[in-house]
């Protein structure tokens, strides 16, 4: 969930690319399932060390973990939305607009028909936006970015117009917000939760840190959150282990080859983009129904774009995407929990992680990138040493700066679907 894990993961996914030159040592560069526990362990140790040195207890408190989860879920869902569309070769910049449709329709339906109907309506609202994007990009061959930008204009406009029609006049409602709605139910794992929370209070090195994080994850968690988390393995299984997923991804890699094998590329692209809209709509419904209990204008706050960032960070794969969403959610959450000191403390952890990362690069004789990482590490540690707090505005920028850094440092290893963003027309292969 923290920096180290994600950085090593990104640096290790190079072999996915067919054009990555001679596959020298595929076994070592690929992040396998075996490295995940190691990464988690190192991350936990780093966080514990940082907490003990700086005394910033909120780094691993159950409160932070719970908040991180709540903040990470919409990013995660938006990232999955991007993943589904881009794996089929359609770039979806319109996620933000589709999320807005999800927030609005979720709240509107939940008002009279209960929270679960609201969740479903959110999905449908987003899917409707996805359908529009599919009509423009797939049927009419409009540039994907242009259509996405148009959707981002359209989504908030539609939500505002409809709010003016249906929310004004109701108690607490207006052009910019809906009345309050009921939230979907939450669960707390009995026994486990209270045990972990009492362990956390002792502030023992390591043990309390892990207990705090786990405790936060199993206390007062929404069922929608659980559903969202399960969608990660679900997406992986569907996209990578089923014939349907193989065909869908083939539309994103080489639609003309897929066409020649009898795949109905238009149909698959339509399905993928509509699913993408559905995920984005769910992300929106999560914001208006779970993270808060009413629709509000600008509720999405650019999370569609952060989701896109998480997807790129995760190299267009579900696991990496989840790691990115977790990292961005965690950075967001710390801001809420004694923000300035917590984030400042995190600098130390980040610096230490970079030192380890640089060391591992040097061990693998990648001196150039290792050198850059080492310089960055020194810079971060110096920043920690010579400042006392980090202005809140800079913490907000964490996801974006991280994405720029990942793109800069690892752009050669990132591999997006080969035909991503290309306009495909049946029978025009050249």
């Amino acid at each position, binding site marked *: 969930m923290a920096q180290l894990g994600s950085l090593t993961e990104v640096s290790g996914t190079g072999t996915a690319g067919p054009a990555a030159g001679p596959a020298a040592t595929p076994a070592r560069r690929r992040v396998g399932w075996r490295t995940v526990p190691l990464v988690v362990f190192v991350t936990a140790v780093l966080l514990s060390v940082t907490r003990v040195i700086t005394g910033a207890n909120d780094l691993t408190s159950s409160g932070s973990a719970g908040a991180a989860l709540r903040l990470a879920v919409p990013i995660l869902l938006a990232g999955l939305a991007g993943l589904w569309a881009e794996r089929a070769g359609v770039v979806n910049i319109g996620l933000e607009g589709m999320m807005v449709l999800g927030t609005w329709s979720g709240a509107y339906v939940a008002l009279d028909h209960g929270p679960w109907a609201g969740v479903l309506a959110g999905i449908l609202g987003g899917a409707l936006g996805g359908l529009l994007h599919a009509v423009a990009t797939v049927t009419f061959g409009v540039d994907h970015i242009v259509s996405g930008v*148009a959707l981002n*204009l359209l989504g908030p*406009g539609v939500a505002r117009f409809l709010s003016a029609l249906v929310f004004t006049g109701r108690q607490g409602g207006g052009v910019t917000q809906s009345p309050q709605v009921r939230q979907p139910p939450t669960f707390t794992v009995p026994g486990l939760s209270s045990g972990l929370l009492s362990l956390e209070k002792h502030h023992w090195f390591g043990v309390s840190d892990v207990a705090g994080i786990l405790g936060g994850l199993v206390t007062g968690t929404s069922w929608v959150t659980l559903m969202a988390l399960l969608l990660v393995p679900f997406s992986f299984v569907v996209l990578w282990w089923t014939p349907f997923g193989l065909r869908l991804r083939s539309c994103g890699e080489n639609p003309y080859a897929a066409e020649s094998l009898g795949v109905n590329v238009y149909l698959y692209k339509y399905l993928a983009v509509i699913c993408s809209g559905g995920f984005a709509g769910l992300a929106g419904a999560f914001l208006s129904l779970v993270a808060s209990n009413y629709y509000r204008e600008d509720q999405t706050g650019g999370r569609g*774009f952060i989701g896109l960032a998480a997807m*790129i960070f995760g190299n267009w794969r579900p696991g990496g995407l989840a790691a990115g969403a977790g990292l961005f959610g965690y950075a967001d959450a710390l801001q809420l929990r004694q923000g300035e000191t917590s984030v400042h403390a995190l600098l130390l952890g980040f610096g230490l992680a970079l030192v380890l990362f640089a060391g591992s690069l040097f061990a693998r004789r990648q001196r150039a990138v290792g050198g850059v990482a080492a310089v960055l590490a020194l810079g971060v540690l110096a920043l920690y040493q010579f400042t006392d707090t980090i*202005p809140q505005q800079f913490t907000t920028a964490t996801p974006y700066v991280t994405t720029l850094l990942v793109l800069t440092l690892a752009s050669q290893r990132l591999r997006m679907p080969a035909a991503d963003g290309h306009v495909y027309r049946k029978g025009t292969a050249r």
Partner: protein
Amino acid sequence: MAGLTARLDPWRIGLALAAPLAALVFSVALMSVVLLIAGHSPALAFGQMADFGTQPGSVVQILDKSAGYYLSALAVAIGFRMNLFNIGVDGQYRMAAMCAAVVGAAVTLPPVLHVGLIILVAVVVGALWAGIAGVLKVTRGVSEVISTIMLNFVGGSIVAWMLTPEVFAVLQGNNVTTRPIPASGQVPGIPFLGGTVYGFIVIAALVGVGYWFLLGYTRFGFDLRATGLSEPAAVASGVAVRRMVLSSMLLSGGVAGLVGLPQLLGASYAYSLDFPAGIGFTGIAIALLGRNHPIGVALASVLWGFLDVSNQILDLNDIPKEIVTIMQGTIVLAVVIAYEVVRRVAVAQERRRVAARLGDDGPAGSGGPGPVESAAVA
């Protein structure tokens, strides 16, 4: 086939005008349906908007608004002509306006010099902020779409930080604002229809003329358009594409830096919490609607300003004025679809014409789709 004869072909001019008109008619029709469903009279709504939007006071407001829109759309259009997608105009102009406001308030200079310095700061900051995306694209192959989106948010954070009382701002009642720019750094308004419009409109128009000349009549402009139409062809004819990417990104960012200045130097004289945001995205819509043409973009900016200003009358009739936002979104989507349809029609037309001239009864595509298609796009 190319050249003047193709340019003056009435069939093609008709096609070029058909798309935006069709999109406009479509969105008006769609809005009428929406209004009818919501129980309002479309005739009343559009009639009121036309009445209110053509009153002298409204016309002044419309022109004021369209100055920023025009600059923003030109910044986007420079990228479009090169096949570069500068989504970052929003972040670029806000960074630029913020820095320009701070520098402008900090120095005292004779009138013209002062304005010149403020403009210079804005252009340089905008260009630098866009340049980051350019450098990343050229050196690391990072897509400018992603990097400019990220830079928008990073720029937003930096502006928010600069706009705190600990850094450059002062509290003023409920508002947080930078210190005001003294009179020597302000651009006086131009009397028009009983009101005054921003003097910066003149500079915006000059930028438009510069854009038209640069792209149409200089080697740089030719290289830029050639790269946008076909990168391999441009490389083959000796264009240094990487240098072109960087310089057009800098140019686009430089123009983007000007976007906030009509407002900053003509009305607010300071950067505050309520400084207009989102003009960068509006610019994308306007550039698409105006087809990257300096005059088309100007017409589209005025249309956008008209919709923005004239919708205020709707609330008085209990019609939600947000209908106009939907209308703007619909126009963009409809116009890009219409352009694509028109392009396909034009390509089919050309193929038929070429096939007829060759006396060839073979398959329609044998006329060489490559060059014909690119000619239809240009």
